[in-house]
């Protein structure tokens, strides 16, 4: 599937008049591509992701999905920030959520969920509740819940933002490993420049509010990728480049002196 957004605008009314959240955003995401969107906080990255997910409608502009999949396969599955799991459901039920909504019978749902729980290394916690798990494990459950749906595109909203640096690296590697197995198209929102470069085929750099796309950067790394790739000169160079673009945006956002 390819996804094409053209001239997407989004504004919403507030007490002090209309606020423009997204301004003239156009992009294309090709089949099986891993695209990262990086930008300062509050720039509308999540909003853009919700538009791609169909949870929000843009004020103007169009988003076109060129789907090749058979019917019945969901277009997308969202992986939310840390609070996306249902605290009242066990890991097993959380992972089986999409199947339950699709009307899959309990037995077959649990069997399938168990497979994914195993794949994500959570077998011992199938009957635990999210509050009994570490934040890292919770995000693995979120990934399993999205992957089990076999969606055409995975949409991820800073899934590892609240993890400590070490756990984050482990989960990034796991994500890449499982992504290789399933070859999904991914749109991955983050404010971590290095993460965007390590995971993505391409990085879209967004400005501060109102969000627009400032630059598109392709990542010159082969796959499978390695943790040590982060030290490669071409990556460091791009990291610095993106940071130079974003620095002013971030300063404006926090009201500092340039």
């Amino acid at each position, binding site marked *: 599937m390819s996804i094409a957004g053209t001239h997407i605008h989004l504004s919403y009314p507030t007490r002090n008049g209309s606020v423009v959240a997204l301004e003239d955003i156009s992009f294309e995401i090709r089949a099986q591509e891993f695209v990262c969107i990086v930008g300062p906080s509050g720039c509308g990255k999540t909003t853009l992701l*919700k538009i791609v*997910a169909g*949870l929000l409608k843009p004020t103007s502009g169009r988003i076109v999905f060129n789907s090749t999949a058979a019917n019945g396969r*969901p277009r*997308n*599955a*969202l992986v*939310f*920030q840390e*609070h*996306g799991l*249902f*605290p*009242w*459901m066990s890991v097993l039920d959380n992972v089986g*959520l*999409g199947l*339950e*909504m*699709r009307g899959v019978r309990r037995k077959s749902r649990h069997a399938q969920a168990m497979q994914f729980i195993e794949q994500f290394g959570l077998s011992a916690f199938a009957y635990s*509740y*999210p*509050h009994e798990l570490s934040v890292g494990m919770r995000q693995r459950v979120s990934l399993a*819940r999205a992957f089990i*749906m076999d969606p055409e595109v995975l949409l991820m909203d800073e899934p590892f933002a609240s993890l400590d640096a070490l756990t984050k690296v482990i989960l990034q590697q796991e994500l890449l490993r499982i992504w290789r197995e399933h070859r999904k198209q991914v749109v991955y929102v983050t404010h971590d420049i290095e993460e965007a470069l390590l995971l993505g085929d391409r990085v879209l750099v967004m400005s501060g509010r109102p969000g627009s796309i400032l630059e598109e950067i392709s990542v010159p790394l082969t796959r499978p990728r390695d943790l040590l790739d982060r030290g490669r000169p071409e990556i460091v160079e791009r990291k610095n480049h993106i940071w130079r673009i974003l620095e002013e945006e971030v300063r404006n956002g926090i009201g500092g002196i340039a």
Partner: protein
Amino acid sequence: MSRSGQWARAQLLRWGAPGIGLALFALWEAAGRMGLISPLFFPAPSVIIDTLVRLFGNGELTANVIATVTRVMSGFLLGGLLGLSLGMLMGWSASLRQVVDPLVAAVHPIPKISIFPLIMIVFGIGVLSKTLVVAIAAFFPMVINTMAGVRQISPIYLEVADNYGAGPWKVFTRVILPASSPMILAGVRLALNLSLTITTSVELLMAQDGLGSMIWLSWQTLRIEELYAAVVALAVIGILFRFTIVMLTKRLVPWQSRESA
């Protein structure tokens, strides 16, 4: 602190409350036997226990307990279920909330027992009026807590449900109901306690049976030990309600077991 010191402290804290209770009863018993307090108005605990056994034996106590619990439960179920349904709708629909919430807020502070005479004017002096006043009392904590419970649901949960293809029924049963159930259970606890209070008040005023009526009758005929027996029975009912809610909370919201107490 030494290990034995820690142990002693833990034991002291553990047995503190039952110890103080027992000590007070012992004091009461001793004061009664020594004639320091009037046995007519303050019968000793042993006398109250004897009375409980006697009234339980001849079926009088059981009949009154059944009458009271029946009134509590019918009023609680009627008002509670209405409150639950309206609270769900008000939590969901901002427009409905805007219209109904001020009305709820206006009527809520009125002590419900005070409108009992008005209810009797309209619905007569029978069982209907008594059930209604209890139902009205139970209605308010349920509607308010349910509404708050639905409103505090994080929008992320609804987006997740939406994204994973949940229809309206699944959203209700798998998200809204479980997400709001801690608050609803807190409402149930308030509503049950209020139902018991209002039922007792109504029985003091206007009933031929029930523990409230038993209290009033024993006061008028100066059988004070029976009054105490009825109070003990009410206390036991209250404790059982609380116990039931705690069990229910553990079972229905296992993910929040820490907050169940």
